[in-house]
């Protein structure tokens, strides 16, 4: 388990595995899907698709720029072109190609970046995508999805294929706890899933941090603080209604993501809150630095991506809220 698990979440699969299985399944139904690999298909799990549909799978070698532009050509000839590599190489290496060939022409290209965040562990910082959400969300027309577990990744993969336009799907390397048991995830692009109700604050998380958020909510509950928990699987378009409701109804927000605080989930939530219903926000994420090699659990601890970090952030934001409240005013409920 990546995190302390007092709530009894069952161990589950890695999101990359779930994506690979879902893609293989959808590949049978949708003949127009073409998959392009940068010689890492056994890591990203597009190899599952490759084994079933070799005529629709192209390993273009270790050349991400070329992969993206080739996908652009496929898409402009009517295909659903899915390109997958390590998130850091896909987004960072081929950013201009994504801009020119995918986002700008608004083509039906799907980008699937695996090995996101620092939880890849021992391979170290050169392999860790921690700025990919910022890069992807900065592109007009791009949908950005960060699923939390196996079931939601399978559903997200299907939603991504059904969406007519560019999508970035972020998957991870380590096995993650089951958030949605028995394949129960409901998934609609741009619509957050409310996993837990609570009146005192809202924790908004994505990816592996959803499990950490649930654990933190459990800890807070033992102290008499009830947290709403949102799985904000879509960073763009953000579910602004859910964010506004969280601000209005719970009065304080903590965001949690396995990404730099610059340009990620927290930044998107902060903008939505500022524009709609300003309340105090605390941010859990990577603080303006690169990580290092080590076991995933050690790294998550060292860089402050844990249930305890969310717990502390919650206490801090609640303190900030009560300090801000006028003495005679109504307390938030």
């Amino acid at each position, binding site marked *: 388990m990546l995190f302390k698990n007092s709530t009894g979440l069952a161990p589950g699969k890695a999101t990359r595995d779930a994506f690979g299985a879902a893609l293989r399944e959808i590949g049978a139904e949708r003949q127009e899907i*073409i998959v392009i690999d940068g010689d890492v298909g056994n890591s990203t799990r597009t190899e599952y698709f490759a084994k079933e549909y070799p*005529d*629709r799978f*192209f390993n*273009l*070698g270790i*050349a991400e*720029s*070329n992969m*993206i*532009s*080739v*996908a*652009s*050509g*496929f*898409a*402009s*000839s*009517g*295909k659903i*072109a899915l390109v997958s590599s390590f998130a850091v190489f896909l987004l960072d290496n081929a950013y*201009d*190609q994504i*801009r*020119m*060939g995918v986002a*700008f*022409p*608004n*083509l039906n290209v799907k980008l699937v970046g695996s090995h996101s965040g620092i939880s890849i562990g021992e391979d170290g910082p050169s392999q860790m995508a921690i700025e990919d959400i910022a890069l992807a969300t900065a592109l007009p027309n791009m949908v950005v999805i960060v699923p939390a577990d196996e079931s939601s990744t399978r559903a997200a993969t299907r939603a991504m294929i059904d969406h007519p336009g560019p999508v970035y799907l972020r998957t991870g390397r380590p096995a993650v706890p089951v958030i949605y048991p028995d394949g129960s995830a409901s998934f609609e692009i741009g619509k957050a899933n409310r996993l837990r109700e609570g009146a005192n604050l809202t924790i908004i998380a994505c990816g592996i941090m959803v499990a950490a958020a649930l654990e933190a909510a459990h800890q807070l509950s033992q102290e008499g603080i009830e947290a709403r928990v949102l799985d904000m699987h879509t960073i763009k378009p953000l579910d602004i209604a859910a964010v506004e409701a969280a601000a209005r109804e719970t009065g304080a927000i903590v965001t949690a993501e396995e990404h730099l605080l610059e340009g990620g989930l927290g930044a998107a939530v902060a903008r939505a809150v500022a524009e709609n219903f300003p309340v105090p926000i605390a941010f859990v994420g990577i603080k303006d630095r690169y990580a290092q090699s080590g076991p995933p659990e050690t790294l998550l601890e060292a860089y402050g991506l844990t249930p305890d970090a969310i717990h502390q952030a919650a206490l801090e934001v609640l303190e900030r809220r009560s300090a801000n409240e006028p003495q005679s005013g109504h307390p938030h409920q």
Partner: protein
Amino acid sequence: MEQKHDVQQHTFDIHRLREISWKLSRAIIQSTTKAGSGHPSSSLSAVDVLTVLYFGDVMRYKPQEPHWPDRDRFILSKGHAAPGLYVTLAEAGYFDPALLSTLRQFGSPLEGHPVYGRTPGVEASTGSLGQGLSIGLGHALSAKVDGRDYRVYVMIGDGESDQGQIWEAAMSAAKYRVDNLTTILDLNGYQQTGPVSKVMPALMPVVQKWQAFGWDVQEIDGHDLAQIHTAFRQAAEVRGRPQILIAHTDKGKFLSPFTKDEKVRKHGVPLNEEEAQTALAELDDRYHAQEGA
């Protein structure tokens, strides 16, 4: 081949091609001079290849149906030669030639560099160099997957060949033995700040480079319409390999207002009114001398 009446596929007529090339060359100068910016010299080096592609019994296309799935594709990877592409597409019937006078104006579909979805007949957004060949490869592979017989043509520049992605595309096209892809290298010898021989001399020997990458290579005079036509015919016969035409061209098509500044050949600089008149007169004289009029 059985085709609907609205498919444009021209027979080879050298006199007609000379006339079209003359007309397109004039339009490149007129539209860029009117716009006050743009890349006329980079367009003029490409204009004869474009003339043969679209009007010389090479490409098949339907201007009224730009997304016809069986159309041959042309991608201008050296996107700064957009004026050359626009005058060609207008002549082919993709849009009203009157639009050429709106080049680069706010609201015009004729943007400074080609924009996919904005201009009928433009197959890819280009202008960030190095990407068009890969996009063309995607189209070409898509034809193979679907069993379609269309061909893909991509024009790249010599300065553009500084980009690593060109060579990524070259390798992967050879891997998949993509024979419905023909690249044209517009070897006009100049990039933005000077001759290619100074900026990136190791582009040479370029013929051997493409041969080494597994491509079928022909070296041609990129202003000789008959030779260009023959080269495209031969390229279409090649099986199991992508093809490239190394087209020796002149940046500015030997027109004196471009050639007088040997250092940079007016890269990205339009002619002023007076220079434009000189260039147009030279084009007229040249055409009439060729056709004996």
